């Protein structure tokens, strides 16, 4: 734990520099001089081109090619409460910091000008003689630590709270002093609670200063009450630390067991969420098929390609928005959904008028023709967009996750669930409450009669197919957020969609919903038990057996009119 020592030193330095240092803890003090000494002894030593350069300072480490030296240098700079130190770290975080190949010179290059880091004077280095300061995860961690430490002491209340939360998640013994100090000066209840959590985590972390058993037990109890995987990780580390008191370690073990029990219960909820979200994806991709296949009886093998076209529409809309109105980039998906619906509906009308309408009453031949069509669409997309993936980005408000108790709810999945529900409701309304829906049902139930009643069946057919295709396009928008957008996208969903529609009962949207959710939750329940592959196989076998028992799916249409 060599790292710890200089980081402890860092904490002391921050406090001293900020004029906050009240007590100097003995533990820290003992290590400090040697640690600082070591820092000083390490002036970019491995840099190969050490010419006659100015005396190394805290900054020169940044020009090193070695990550440990860079990280150490960051810690040192972080301890200096000067504007130039602040600027330097900020430039480093945003890739604007450059180092001379001599292992000493440092420049900030933001916008077009170059500036010397140490003096702030504009400079004009030879672009071939500088390189960006090397950054890797280790450097990033060091930077985040320093910035958290600074924020804890000098930040706004919001920054302090954020820094405290970060510390609770990433306990760092080096910052114990800062936490203690913050606790002394904190008057905000929320910050206080977070800091206490952070302190408990730090006390139990490896490399923390030795505490008395009572403190340790209190910390264990605090983490136990807190729960969650981070607490568990800290407790596990502590329980494995053989130098710690046995009693506290036992308590930690019990706390872990307690957390594990709670996690198990939360895991059920988590699994249900995963299942529902998988079910929602299945529902979305199957809903369009439930219309074209379920209602119209067209075995549309190009359904997956319509989903794919929906995803590509999303891509184009994003590209268009970025080019025309970059300010709206957060709302591309809101724009993409209607666009995908319109594009895919239009393509649907085209397919229906030019192909499907000649094949009514020959459902199996629609299978062959639409299979051919799917090949053509795939290849066309490949010719236009290339065979590689295209990048569809996720807007900020859809990325990330939030905690709901012990569950992680990912925003994009949640959005897809809500989206699926909305599409389902809209579809129901269209089918039940609109003239088109009525005509659609009339035509599917008795085409001749519908014609006699003056319904223009050709128009209804085209519109029905357009609706199904449009919904497929909407599914494409959703899928673009979680999957590859490539010409092969559709192929991955076609089998599942058919399975969902058939499993639910052809011609019944509620059945499609029930089937999608059953398959989603079933799949996600079996996955941790049997593994993804075996789980899926078992699910398929169960569906096959189920259909043998109930040959018309979960919600069969019944009545006299339905003949085999």
């Amino acid at each position, binding site marked *: 734990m060599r790292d710890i020592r200089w980081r402890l030193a860092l904490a002391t330095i921050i406090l001293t520099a900020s004029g906050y240092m009240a007590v100097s803890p003995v533990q820290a003090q003992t290590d400090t001089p040697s640690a600082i000494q070591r820092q000083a002894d390490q002036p970019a030593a491995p840099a190969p081109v050490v010419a006659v350069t100015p005396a190394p300072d805290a900054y020169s480490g940044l020009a090193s090619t070695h*990550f*440990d030296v860079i990280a150490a240098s960051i810690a040192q700079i972080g301890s200096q409460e000067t504007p130039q130190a602040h600027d330097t770290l900020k430039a480093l975080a945003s890739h604007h910091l450059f180092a001379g190949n001599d292992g000493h010179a440092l420049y900030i290059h933001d916008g077009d000008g170059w500036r010397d880091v140490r003096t702030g004077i504009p400079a004009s280095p030879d672009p071939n003689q500088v390189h960006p300061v*090397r*950054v*890797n*995860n*280790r450097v*990033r*961690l060091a930077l*985040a630590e320093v910035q958290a430490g600074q924020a804890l002491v000098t930040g706004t209340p919001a920054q302090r709270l954020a820094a405290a939360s970060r510390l609770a998640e*990433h306990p760092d013994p080096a910052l114990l002093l800062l936490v203690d100090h913050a606790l002394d000066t904190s008057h905000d209840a929320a910050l206080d609670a977070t800091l206490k959590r952070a302190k408990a985590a730090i006390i139990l972390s490896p490399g923390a200063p030795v505490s008395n058993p009572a403190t340790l037990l209190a910390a264990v109890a605090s983490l136990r009450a807190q729960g969650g*995987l*981070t607490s*568990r*990780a*800290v*407790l*596990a*580390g502590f*329980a*494995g630390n053989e130098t710690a008191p046995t009693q506290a370690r036992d308590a930690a073990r019990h706390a872990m067991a307690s957390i594990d029990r709670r996690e198990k219960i939360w895991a059920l909820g*988590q699994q249900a969420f*995963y299942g529902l979200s*998988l079910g929602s*994806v299945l529902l979305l991709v199957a809903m369009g098929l439930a219309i074209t296949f379920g209602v119209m009886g067209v075995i549309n093998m190009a359904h997956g390609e319509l989903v794919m076209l929906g995803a590509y529409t999303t891509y184009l809309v994003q590209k268009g928005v970025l080019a025309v109105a970059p300010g709206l980039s957060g709302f591309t998906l809101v724009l993409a959904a209607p666009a995908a619906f319109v594009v895919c509906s239009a393509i649907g009308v085209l397919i229906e008028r030019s192909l499907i309408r000649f094949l009514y009453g020959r459902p199996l031949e629609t299978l062959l023709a639409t299979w051919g069509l799917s090949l053509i669409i*795939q*290849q066309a997309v*490949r010719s236009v967009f290339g*065979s*590689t*993936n295209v*990048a*569809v*980005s*996720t807007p900020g408000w859809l*990325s*990330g*996750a939030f905690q709901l108790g012990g569950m*992680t709810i*990912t*925003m*994009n*999945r949640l959005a897809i669930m809500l989206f699926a529900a909305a599409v389902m409701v809209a579809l129901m309304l269209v089918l039940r409450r609109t003239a088109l829906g009525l005509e659609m049902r009339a035509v599917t139930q008795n085409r001749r009669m519908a014609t006699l009643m003056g319904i223009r069946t050709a128009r209804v057919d085209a519109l029905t197919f357009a609706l199904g295709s449009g919904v497929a396009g909407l599914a494409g928008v959703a899928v673009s*957020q*979680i*999957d*590859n*957008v*490539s*010409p*092969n996208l559709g*192929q*991955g969903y076609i089998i599942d969609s058919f399975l969902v529609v058939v499993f639910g009962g052809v011609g019944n949207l509620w059945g499609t919903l029930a089937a999608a959710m059953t398959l989603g939750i079933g*799949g*996600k329940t079996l*996955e*941790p038990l049997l*593994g*993804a*592959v075996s789980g899926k196989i078992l699910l398929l076998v169960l569906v096959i057996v189920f259909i043998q028992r109930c040959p018309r799916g979960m919600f069969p249409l019944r009545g006299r009119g339905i003949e085999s």
Partner: protein
Amino acid sequence: MTDPTMCVSRRDFARFSLAASAAMLVGGKTARAAAPTGEPIRIGVLHSLSGTMAISETTLKDVILMLVDLQNKKGGVGGRPLEAVVVDPASNWPLYTEKARQLLAVDKVAAVFGCWTSVSRKAVLPVFEELNGILFYPVQYEGQECSRNVFYMGAAPNQQAIPAVDYLLGEDGGSARRFALIGTDYVYPRTTNQILQAYLKQKGIADADVMVSYMPFGQSDWQTTVSQIKAFGSAGKKTAVISTINGDANVPFYKELGAQGIAATDIPVMAFSVGEEELAGMDTKPLVGQLAAWNYFESIDTPANKAFINAWHTFTKSPKRVTNDPMEAHYIGFNLWVQAVEKTGTTDHDKVIAAMVGLKQPNLTGGIAEVLPNHHITKPVYIGEIQDDGQFNVVWQTPQEIPAQAWSPYVPETRNLTGDWRAPISCGNYDTAKKACLGTRHA
């Protein structure tokens, strides 16, 4: 047979089969005219242009076309122009067999550049051995193979996987002590993980600290796996993921990682099959710091690489097309073959194969690729971190090139095996303990 109702007359059928044979003999489409005179030398390009593998392989076809183009502008090979015969095996493994046979038997190509997946290579291997062809295989793979007729231009496990694990174990990589090996269920991840498990054990990592999980091809729902990784990472030890997930499934995997908020600074993911091409389809902002191990990165700044990238952009007429590791492998392979043909003055397969061992070709990123007796090459290893612009930033590299081991010393069955296609051993799987060649050896 005078029945007028007969569906196809015998004469028609004969005509049909004649047409068929004629068509066969004409063979595949030939690409772009050549400047140099003399009888053209044909080379085959066996990459899927449709189906699931098109996403990766189409680019490699373009690279070969570009290399042929450049070579012809330089005057061809030995004064003869090159001509690329492109076929589409459509991501269908038996079709690879058929197309390989067509290239060798009908088009009589001097060499074939092709295949991506292990199964496609395994599918064509018997054809190449039977018809004594030459295949340049450009992709990193699981090793455990050493054919006389194949030149392996991609990394063997010791040229990618082992250095990558070393990095994760080291301080710069975060001193990981717990490893989740996540892969697609096929031979490359299985073998690589087998080797890595043996290696980790040797490095003192307990079995309980290694988790292995395989997912099916094209897996698009990674929620459960990612949450399992999170739980696995909560044991109080620095945890890292080693991903051998196959190309396609990576995008949804990384999207899920980003969504569930696993940052590279918490649990780094080291991938062996994620390159610039895969990243091109992703928003990499949530992925900054995630790792990949390769023998080439587009971002490596050398004059040769710059020239290659420029040529590529000019050839594809698109400044956005990225370059990646298998492309460099084709570049190396192509140039080695050109050298061999020019050295021997013939395209005769036996002579070219014999001349290959020992040839040297500078890498695009510096250093030299040398053809080893086991038909693999020496390669530098780089570890890159994903940047927010979709490129990799090299954070570590081997001090010098590493020679490939075709047979892994970490797999008990192959500990003693070695490949050496020079006389007198002339065997791909020579058992150094028994001093005998297992299986067939070339006469």
